[in-house]
């Protein structure tokens, strides 16, 4: 009997990490060859890893939700019988033939040796603080024996033309890559007479999110960056352009005293029967918007250019604009008009969680009739949203904040929220839109009767 370690493979041509979605085996399980072991999610896909061995599971590395590095141990097996030379090549830690002086890993195809610096650079993206992090400015250049300083051909040429020896420079690019800026800095290091130098303003080094990706910081990113328009970004831009240039947008908005909603939600959360139910102003907005549609079905309509008809629907598929790691996506809750408070809260939970986990299916994004976008969590009061194509209206909820409010001619402190709604002015007029928004506003102002009596 001997131990064999299955290293997390690169299942998608150049991936560096994967998240554990579900374990399908436990320690002590006896598995056969190609038996499903674990579901992992990469930047490209969620895939099932089949077992490379027949044997007993001795150890599992990582828990569900953990992000694991490609090439690191995932599962340890105990296998019986003879291990041929071929099998020992599969992730045998430190055993078996060691080729070309580098550790053999399961990721052996098409990418050269795993610890080659160039490979680490290309793959480095989100793992902060590891050995391939940028070398600090001013740190001594580390010469790698036998290898030229790391740079790119145009920069090498530029340096050569200007008499700069790359070996004397410390690269500030990713993983210590020497950039054109580094060469220029070396060239301008002699002070210009008469000019008063400014202290360097580098900006923060923290990254931020943009179009579904991690955007490099002001300090470390390139001066200009181009991002291919595809995937979720492409969907968003297509939908917005289609809507903005086919559907004449108009908007109405209203400020509402939502103190009673805030109080009601606080008291419902204490209720024993509702423990575990995630209730929020979004739950109330979803119920209120559906109720408004039941009273004014015209809002739940779309304009069909192809047939020259307006389509009124008496069922609401309620879209929820979700800010996800991949970008903006709008899954919907089917037949939302049929849901009560608890059902609505759990339906919202499901669609939002799936959107954030990236498991929303195309089915769940088709057939939206009305949409809610909640910009409150971003700390703004209101927004004028673009209507998703093929729908009648979209409701935007602002943040809830204490504000001076007039009650019985007295200025008092109340919780106030702004609601805004964009609508397709081809078939929906201002009177209908105002009636709908006022209905939603009244629901928030006094939610208990609306929830109980409908």
């Amino acid at each position: 009997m001997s131990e064999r370690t299955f290293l997390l493979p690169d299942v998608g041509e150049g991936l560096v990490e994967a998240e554990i979605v579900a374990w399908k085996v436990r320690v002590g399980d006896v598995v056969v060859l190609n038996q499903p072991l674990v579901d992992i999610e990469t930047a490209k896909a969620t895939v099932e890893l089949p077992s490379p061995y027949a044997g007993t599971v001795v150890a599992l590395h990582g828990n569900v939700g953990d992000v694991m590095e490609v090439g690191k141990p995932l599962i340890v097996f105990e296998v019986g019988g003879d291990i041929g030379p071929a099998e020992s090549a599969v992730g045998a830690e430190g055993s078996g033939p060691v080729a070309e002086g580098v550790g053999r890993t399961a990721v052996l195809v098409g990418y050269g040796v795993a610890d080659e610096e160039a490979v680490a650079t290309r793959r480095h993206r989100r793992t902060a603080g590891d050995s391939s992090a940028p070398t600090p400015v001013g740190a001594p250049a580390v010469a790698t024996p036998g290898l030229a300083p790391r740079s790119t051909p145009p920069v090498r040429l530029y340096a050569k033309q200007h008499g700069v020896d790359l070996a004397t420079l410390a690269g500030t690019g990713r993983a210590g890559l020497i950039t054109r800026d580094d060469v220029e800095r070396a060239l301008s290091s002699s002070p210009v007479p008469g000019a008063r130098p400014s202290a360097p303003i580098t900006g923060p080094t923290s990254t931020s999110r943009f179009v579904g990706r991690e955007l490099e910081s002001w300090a470390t990113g390139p001066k200009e960056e181009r991002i291919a328009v595809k995937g979720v970004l492409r969907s968003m831009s297509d939908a917005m352009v289609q809507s903005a240039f086919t559907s004449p947008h108009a908007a109405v908005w209203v400020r509402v005293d939502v103190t009673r909603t805030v109080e009601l939600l606080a008291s419902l959360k204490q209720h024993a029967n509702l423990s575990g139910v995630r209730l929020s102003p979004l739950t109330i907005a979803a119920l209120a918007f559906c109720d408004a549609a039941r009273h004014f079905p015209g809002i739940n309509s779309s304009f069909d250019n192809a047939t020259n008809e307006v389509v009124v629907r008496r069922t609401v598929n309620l879209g929820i604009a979700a800010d996800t790691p991949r970008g903006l996506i709008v899954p919907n809750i089917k037949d939302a008009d049929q849901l009560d408070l608890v059902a609505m809260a759990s339906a919202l939970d499901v669609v939002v969680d799936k959107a954030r986990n990236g498991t929303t299916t195309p089915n769940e994004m088709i057939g939206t009739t009305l949409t809610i976008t909640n910009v409150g969590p971003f700390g703004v009061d209101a927004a004028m949203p673009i209507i998703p194509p093929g729908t009648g209206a979209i409701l935007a909820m602002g943040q809830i904040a204490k504000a001076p409010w007039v009650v019985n001619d007295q200025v008092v402190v109340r919780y106030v929220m702004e609601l805004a709604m964009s609508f397709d002015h081809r078939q929906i007029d201002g009177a209908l839109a105002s009636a709908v928004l006022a209905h939603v506003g009244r629901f928030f102002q006094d939610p208990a009767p609306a929830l109980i009596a409908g």
Partner: protein
Amino acid sequence: MIDEELVQLLTPEGERVDSTEYESSLSGDEIFGFYRDMAIVRRICSEATSLQRQGQLALWAPVQGQEAAQIGAGRALAPTDFTFPTYREHGIAWCRGVPPEDMLRIFRAVSNGGWDPQKYRHSTPTVVLGNQTLNAVGYAMGVQRDGAEEAVMTFFGDGASSQGDVLESFVWASSFNTPIVFFLQNNQWAISEPSSLQTKIPLYHRAHGFGFPGIRVDGNDVLAVYEVTKRALENARVGGGPTLVEAYTYRMGAHTTSDDPTRYRIDAEVEVWKHRDPIERVKALLVHEYKVKATAFDEVAAEADVVALKLRDDVLAMDRPDPLSMFEHAYAASHPLVEEGRREMIELGIGGSSH
């Protein structure tokens, strides 16, 4: 079921269809042979997918769902014919006699090709979309000039049908009346792009615009694919010129192991095509018409498992090639740029121990 002009000899339920134009010439033994081919190819594909998921292949392009299109076309070929595949023609490679482990070399990145094209009369896979159709037409023009009675068949998909290379190859094939069959597997998806976006007319209609016949065959019906392709190849060998065969089929799995089709296509569509599975309908025919016993199918499954296990052993035993070996196959003779690249790699200390 899909198109009234679709040639079909076997329904998804495994019942024979009377066709005025084509009839099946195959015996029960031959049909069983096709069943065996398809089952083994599917098994090779599933093992290769597992090997990729285990870090042993860089990539794999699954063929699941297209077995009938490939076995029907592959078995219609004569040994002397020559074929130009894409990276997904594992069923064609199987019919040409390429050992399964050789099919995986390029996916394990230990070879730029995998086999000797002359030995199997099957070119190495072309990854650049549509390029192989130009190579094939050029080869077919050579066949004409040799006066040989051979046909050439080239393979591509609905996505590549939009490539300029493919359309240019149609023009040349038509102008010179070359002995070629363009075998288009319309598997409905060019990675994430539906074929309905690629073309506003059925793809086989395009051939008419270039001046040669096009025909659409149920690509999940191995009997129909065999007869249609066989006639097109015979026509090519006797100077009848090119034919476009559109095998209407479906890619049941991902485009490659790097792809996640659930992000762009709906489950309901996949469910519809599951009922049109190319292997199940042949099995139904064999059971009902030829009274083939369950044990015969079990034997094929066991044989496929043996092929898969041998494939696994062979792949795991493949050594990493010397990086310098890649310079050996770029040109037939020495070339100054290639030599410079080789020298630089030696200076950088990459490879070269055995050369």
